[in-house]
């Protein structure tokens, strides 16, 4: 109903008599705090300020991103190695570098290794991270304990990869490493496992990497679960859904996008995964644990076969570019479905 004036006002009761009425046309009636506000100093004092503010970062980006990228594309088409680089004497050889790379068994093997790493490393991390995140959220009800567990589980991610590599190399030392010793004492094995043998070294790296990176999908999925609307869960309780039905029909479908994003993040990291390989096995023994990025690093930085390394890098770049495009398309779809775009 219309409620224009309270009856009290009419009778001349001083309803808001103390405060003078604000007249928008008359600045003198504005509140004192408003009139006392000091005008801010103008940030842009000269023409060169905005140019410098934008220009410097652009310049830095150019030096560390654009120039090296162009340089890489250029040398991918040349027979550059260290000697020729210093002599300034390199020749155009077309796509020969790419042919070398694509025809080499080494590259083919590394693709297989990458496939194994993606399936059992990256996927396992996301699945394990999601399970841990949901267990943490659903079963641990005390906020304090949740934080304690979360911090404990995120710690491995905070360590530098070099430390993680050295740590796991140490733990897995075949002859007297802690893990072999523990397994022996428990009676699970009766002789040392040769963790760094040809058949096992890639899996050893995967174990260390899972330990190192499971926390990332865990954090992503956990924060996704925290942000789900509690009212929906109340509705599910009232509607009579049990814990399993709620998880299967409500939680997982609502977390689908978040889990997908965790997958994508880990997949993109896989393409530039070098550190643990370098520290734990150096790709060995006999190149049995090499990944494409590691070969690029090995050929370019350590053996100075610059042209060939550039070809590796471009191939990796091409594949990850496709992946990123697919990812962005998916993200757009998700955002659209949620009404953000």
């Amino acid at each position, binding site marked *: 109903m*219309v409620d224009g004036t309270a009856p009290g006002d009419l009778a001349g009761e001083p309803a808001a008599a103390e405060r003078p009425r604000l007249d928008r046309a008359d600045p003198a009636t504005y509140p004192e705090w408003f009139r006392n506000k000091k005008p801010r100093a103008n940030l842009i004092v000269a023409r060169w300020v905005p140019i410098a503010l934008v220009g410097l970062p652009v310049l830095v980006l150019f030096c560390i991103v654009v120039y090296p990228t162009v340089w890489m594309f250029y040398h991918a088409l040349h027979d550059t190695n260290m000697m020729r680089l210093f002599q300034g004497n390199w020749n155009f050889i077309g796509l020969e570098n790419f042919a070398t790379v694509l025809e080499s068994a080494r590259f083919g093997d590394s693709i297989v290794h990458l496939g194994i790493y993606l399936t059992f490393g990256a996927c396992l991390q996301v699945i394990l991270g999601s399970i841990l995140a949901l267990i943490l959220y659903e079963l641990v009800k005390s906020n304090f304990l949740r934080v304690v567990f979360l911090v404990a589980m995120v710690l491995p991610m905070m360590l530098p990869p070099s430390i993680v590599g050295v740590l796991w190399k140490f733990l897995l030392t075949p002859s007297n490493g802690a893990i072999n010793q523990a397994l022996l004492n428990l009676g699970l094995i009766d002789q040392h496992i040769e963790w760094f043998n040809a058949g096992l070294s890639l899996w050893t790296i995967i174990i260390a990497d899972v330990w190192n990176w499971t926390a990332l999908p865990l954090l992503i999925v956990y924060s996704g679960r925290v942000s789900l609307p509690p009212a929906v869960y109340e*509705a599910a309780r*009232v509607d009579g859904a049990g814990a399993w039905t709620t998880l299967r029909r409500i939680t997982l479908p609502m977390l689908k996008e978040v889990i997908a994003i965790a997958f994508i993040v880990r997949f993109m990291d896989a393409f530039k995964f070098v550190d643990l390989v370098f520290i734990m096995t150096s790709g060995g023994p006999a190149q049995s644990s090499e990944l494409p990025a590691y070969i690029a690093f090995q050929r370019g930085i350590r053996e100075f076969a610059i042209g060939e390394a550039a070809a590796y890098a471009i191939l990796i770049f091409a594949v990850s570019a496709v992946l990123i495009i697919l990812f962005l398309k998916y993200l757009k779809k998700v955002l659209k479905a949620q*009404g953000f775009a």
Partner: protein
Amino acid sequence: MARVSLRDVNKIYRSRHDEVHAVSDLNLTINDGEFVAILGPSGCGKTSTLRMIVGLEEITSGEIYFDDVLVNKLDSQARNVAMAFETYALYPNFTVEENLAFPLEVRGLPQPERRKRAREIAELLRIDDILNQKPTALSGGQQQRVSLGRALIRDPAVFILDEVMSHIDAHLKFQMLFDLKSIHQELKKTMVYVTHDQVEALALADRVAVMSNAELQQVGSRNDLYHTPSNVFVADFIGEPPTNFFDAELFTGDNGTVLRVPDSDIVFQLDQGHAQRIARWNERELKVGIRPQSLHLGGDSARPALEAEVAINEYLGELSILTLASGGRSFRALVDADTAAQRGDRLRMHYALDDVMVFSAKTELIIL
């Protein structure tokens, strides 16, 4: 079906620094098949009460019974209640049809049966054209109806409806009030309806429970609340526009005992029997209430009346609200829209002696 009884129910929200008494010593029985509305302003504890009945909120003290079963410790699933949420709480990844059918899916009904029932309820609530859409694509009113449908599709002991019409536009609301009332008459189920809108509450409910400040103020039919409000709050809250209140005192003069508003020339006549009843209370300070609807224009000049000057004439279509001023006091009256009253006109507003409500100013409880 069930009778719901709340006995001395308290709800206290405790945080580290603070304690909020949200519901205080609530006693209320909702009979089997009855439609009860809990009405009150925001923050009065009505939603907390509801959530305790549903089992989403722990009961701090007191007991809640469904028939003769103590349900304090029972989970919402075990209580077999259906609830429509104020925030809709629809499952965002389901279509409207799946949302409606989810309670049936949980109970293991076969797919064709679920579809059939979902379609029936959707038709009833006029959402059968959006069955394949996701909740994010719907307007607030549509989402609210889906949420209502999800509650109505079940066969629970009690239906709990929390502010289910707050986002539905006025025209459709009128129709849905009617529909909901017919649904209730057909199903004859116990329903509890929480709202802050008295029009909804009075239109739907068999009985209305008025809450304020965590306490139950009065439970009763529309007539009870309207004609014999238990205290000043109920008298003020029920009825639109709100009741006019005056501070007054008993005064015995030449024409018998009257209620006089100090420092003004407003005087309320009293039936002498009533005057004696008021006098027996022995209260010095009184509050007089009279509804804007009880003040009438014209008629016999011998009838008791308030004389006042028109200050504002608000035209509301069928009716007009006159704001009248007399000796430094102002009050409102509801008159026919054809009344040609203008600012400055002096009018005599008649009232019936029975329509004057008298409260104690100290306790705010009704005396007469």
